[in-house]
């Protein structure tokens, strides 16, 4: 896992939740392109957090080899649906699996940046404590109406006080805003994770229209 700051000429600015595409071109002309969520809040420059996938075509370069000054082709910002601008006072529920937390962290940063008073909860599912990203930063943002809840699905360190299982309807019932509050919901992760979380929220009485999802594939 690595966070890279990109200097993009003529960057038009971005919204919390958007992504960009990175395209690499090999010497023989072969091209590989992948999407990465923008980790930084609007107005903060452009940063992406990349999870290294061993058999990936793009992430091993970005995580292991990219050096300051290297040039990559970038397309973006992309997305007008999976975005939260901070001007909506409704409660917000963010649910992220693994690196699906990246665009959600941008929303949490945006909340702090614009001084939003919308109550916001972030539920993060990770395999192990080592897989947790932005832990310290998100903890630092907590309070003042922002709460972070973690679940570790594979192993937990001694003294772990968070949840210790995959996201299920019971866990969502503990954490999620009650349905009558009509929360705005953003779920990001693998297809399997997103489907499970969205189904669980529907079981709590959430309206499908409240739930915005972004699925990503492990193609790295």
């Amino acid at each position, binding site marked *: 896992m690595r966070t890279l700051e990109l200097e993009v000429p003529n960057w038009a600015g971005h919204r919390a939740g958007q992504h960009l595409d990175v395209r690499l071109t090999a010497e023989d002309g072969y091209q590989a392109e992948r*999407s990465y969520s923008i980790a930084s809040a609007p107005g903060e420059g452009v940063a992406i957090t990349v999870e290294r996938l061993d058999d990936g075509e793009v992430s091993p370069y970005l995580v292991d080899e990219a050096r300051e000054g290297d040039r990559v082709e970038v*397309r973006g910002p*992309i997305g007008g649906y999976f975005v939260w601008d901070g001007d909506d006072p409704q409660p917000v529920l963010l649910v992220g699996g693994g690196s699906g937390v990246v665009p959600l962290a941008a929303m949490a940063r945006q909340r702090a940046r614009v001084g939003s008073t919308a109550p916001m909860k972030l539920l993060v599912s990770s395999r192990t404590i080592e897989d947790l990203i932005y832990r310290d930063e998100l903890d630092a943002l907590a309070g003042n109406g922002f709460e972070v809840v973690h679940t570790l699905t594979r192993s937990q360190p001694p003294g772990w006080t968070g949840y210790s299982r995959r996201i299920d309807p019971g866990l969502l019932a503990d954490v999620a805003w009650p349905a009558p509050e009509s929360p705005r919901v953003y779920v990001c992760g693998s297809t399997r994770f997103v489907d499970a979380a969205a189904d669980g929220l529907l079981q709590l009485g959430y309206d499908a229209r409240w739930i915005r999802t972004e699925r990503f594939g492990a193609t790295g």
Partner: protein
Amino acid sequence: MTGTSELRLDGNAIGGLLLELFGAELTAAPCICAGCGAREEMARLDVYVGAGIVVRCRHCESVMLRVVKGRGHTWLDLSGAASLELG
């Protein structure tokens, strides 16, 4: 159906491709299925990624849009979409 559930993404995944093809941000663009008439934003449609891109209605699973790229050309089949609102 095409492939396994792991290959099923959603319209967010093709936002960059659509930006390239149409010159506009389209993940929030309302699309109407020619099969069942359902209206959903592009981001809420099922996207299958393989040799090409297949976009299906999340309600009736009809193919709404297909994109195939190769040999320097791009083929776009919109016959399954009754409309695509470009803003």
